[in-house]
């Protein structure tokens, strides 16, 4: 032990290795290690297969939204209206399904499909408005998506009068909320599909690469024959689409259309992305890390639940975590730019 501590050169080497990992992938590995140690110490139930499976299942929704949020962040902006997209999807699709299933009681799946499409359409409208504002009118993404999120939330509440839309077709909740395929929960399958598609999109397609280029330096991208407006539009549309998908899954899970679904998810998804090394300045970020980042957030929430931290205190800690992640992002960016 003493030989180890006195050897400063190995300490130094370890420090530089730590720094390299930090510059490469960001703060996530360190946070994950700390969280695992702390929560394992606090609760014996934390590090069990059962609990981790539980976390994996619960994290599906945040993973999905974070994938969309990542796209907005990499394009150089962010999307505060993901929660609204979820709420609006939930309300619109539920209303649609309830109404349609009353009209066509014999064609429940038709009602479900059309209702779902209506919800997706509503969310895409949100994405479209965001995209047009950011890409064509060059409104700052912060203001644009904040404004849209208020508009959307207001509409969702207006449509339902603040009362949850109930009496959804049972088949919807049974399949997408609690259903299993090959023994795997359906939401997990949906998320896995989305992860794979996003990974292929970001690393293999021209459009995905364009998002990186636009976020890195939009003027340079413009001078490299990239349609920057179309690319930005696309980022916000896909972000809304994925949020909408999450909204459908959540609606199926709670078996009602609710205007307050996704209330904290904008903050959580941004935290997940930033912790996972997605730069707030755009241009940098990886799908696989974002998945881990979202998983990490849910893991921390789960650990805090097991450690019986009150939900109010959890909000405090989550906000602090986000700020901490942003500070580390700043440090990392400085290291990248100075080349050390």
């Amino acid at each position: 032990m003493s030989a180890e501590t006195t050897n400063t050169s190995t300490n130094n080497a370890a420090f530089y290795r730590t720094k390299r990992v930090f510059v490469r992938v960001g703060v996530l590995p360190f946070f994950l290690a700390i969280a695992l140690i702390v929560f394992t110490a606090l609760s014996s139930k934390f590090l069990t297969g059962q609990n981790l499976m539980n976390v994996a299942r619960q994290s599906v929704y945040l993973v999905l939204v974070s994938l969309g949020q990542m796209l907005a962040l990499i394009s150089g902006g962010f999307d505060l209206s993901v929660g609204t997209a979820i709420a609006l999807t939930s309300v619109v699709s539920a209303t649609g399904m309830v109404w349609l299933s009353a009209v066509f009681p014999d064609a429940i799946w038709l009602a479900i499909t059309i209702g779902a499409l209506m919800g997706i359409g509503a969310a895409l409208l949100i994405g479209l408005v965001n995209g047009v504002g950011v890409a064509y009118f060059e409104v700052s993404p912060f203001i644009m998506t904040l404004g849209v999120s208020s508009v959307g939330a207001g509409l969702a509440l207006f449509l339902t009068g603040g009362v949850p839309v109930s009496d959804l077709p049972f088949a919807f909740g049974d399949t997408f909320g609690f259903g299993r395929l090959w023994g795997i929960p359906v939401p997990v399958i949906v998320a896995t599909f989305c992860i794979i598609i996003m990974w292929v999109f970001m690393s293999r397609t021209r459009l995905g690469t364009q998002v990186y280029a636009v976020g890195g330096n939009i003027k340079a991208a413009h001078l490299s024959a990239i349609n920057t407006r179309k690319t930005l539009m696309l980022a916000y549309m896909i972000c809304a689409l994925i949020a909408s998908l999450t909204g459908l899954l959540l609606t199926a899970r709670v078996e009602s259309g609710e205007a307050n679904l996704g209330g904290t998810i904008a903050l959580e998804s941004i935290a997940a992305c930033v912790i996972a090394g997605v730069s707030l300045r755009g241009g940098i970020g990886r799908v696989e890390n974002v998945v881990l980042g979202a998983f990490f957030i849910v893991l921390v929430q789960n650990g805090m639940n097991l450690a019986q931290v009150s939900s109010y205190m959890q909000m405090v800690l989550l906000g602090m975590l986000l700020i901490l992640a942003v500070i580390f992002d700043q440090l990392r960016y400085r290291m990248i730019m100075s080349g050390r």
Partner: protein
Amino acid sequence: MTNIPLVQTIGLSKQYPGVLALDEIDFDLMPGEVHVLFGENGAGKSTLISMLAGANVPSSGAILRDGQKSHFESVADAQKRGIYTVFQEFSLIPTLSVAQNIFLGWEPRKGPFIDHRAMRQRAAQMFEELEFDIDPSAITATLSRAQQQMVEITKAFHGDLSVLILDEPTASLTDREVDHLFRFIKDLKARGIGIIYISHRMQEFARIADRITVLRDGAKIGTVAMADTNDGALVEMMTGRAISEIYPRIAQNTGDVFLKVDQVLTTGLHPCSFEVNAGEVLGIAGLVGSGKSRIFRTIMGLNPRLGGQVELAGCDITKSSTRAIIEAGVYYLSPDRKHEGLDLAKPCNDNLAVNPMMARLDEKLRGFVNWIAIRQKTGAIADKVELSEGYRSKLVSQLSGGNQQKVLFGKAFGQDIDVYIFDEPTVGVDMGTRAALYRLIRDLAEAGKAVVLISSDLPEVLNLSHRLLVFAHGKITAALSGDSMTEDQVLKHFFDETGATA
């Protein structure tokens, strides 16, 4: 004149981890002298002045102020001892008024409150003394860059100024403003103030310099009196090679008209018409603000197009989007690699990959990037622009200006292009890199491409172009070729105030 130098360095060195930025420099500045520091980027000029300015601490060696060994704690400390530096990056706050900027940290007070009236009056007084025509209550952001520079210089006159350090002061000035600055410098000389002057523009040295110290790779190559030297000798000292090795000869086989510009109009310009032919280098000379860059930005669709017509190989591209114009075969290399050219936080390879990707290089499945082909292509491009193997996977932000410029240049080779528009392709680039970029320009022209070379560097356009258009006051004032392409001719048309065209 006394013979104690105002400032002197003895064996001044600066060691950074792994790099010796400055190697035992002996330098001195006499009262009433303009001493030019000359050298390539990274030669150590900035390091040297940063230590004289108090922004940086030497690793070894000594700085003598009026013969006394001195140690500057900070820039403010150096200013207190009469050494004032005007850096390239201005220290002005754009949203404040000119007077507020000048008195930032020195505000005259009336009780606990700032006395704005006294501030304006004193600023006006200082401007009058220095013969600067600037309104002290104007908001700084509304001034031209030249005027901002004058404000920056005015700030130096709070204290007891004895050494003025100017870092590339003329980089963004028009010639008339340069004249003004030089008159002013002569004034200062007469008052016994010593001036350290950093510039790349050799044509300026004959007008103001007394002595020139040449640095290369952190070492002092020599100090010469201006009267005893000439441009060729200076370049040789700076680069270690002769001037004829820098500019290649470019064979001229003028082909068809590639780009036909007819009466193109934008804000601040008169309608311009000219043609760019295959296999030639068309030089575009002019001062900053002459419109030489704006006309091409207009053609590319980066500025509003208010009229006229542009044809590319017979096709009308007057109203096409920038993207469509690039795809049709015109490449515009931005003069501002940080803001418009490169994605600094990404590796060189990724920066180079964007253009071939957008050209859909070898896409097997539509919309899917063929990374294997792209990686081969970026490797070939990096070879072509002579970017060292070790730099290719490094982030652009970590490279020197010269290497960054090579990456920016490399982006031009990512797709099929017929007309290359290089806007200030060698700005802030050392001679070695310049020579490499010039060879690339030669290869392009000799391969039958059309090259437009927009440059404020007169020797560069004169040596490389087959034909030369001179811009002044938003219009073409001369079209020169062959023997008429001389420095005198170009300079004459720079100041063509009468409006007569050649």
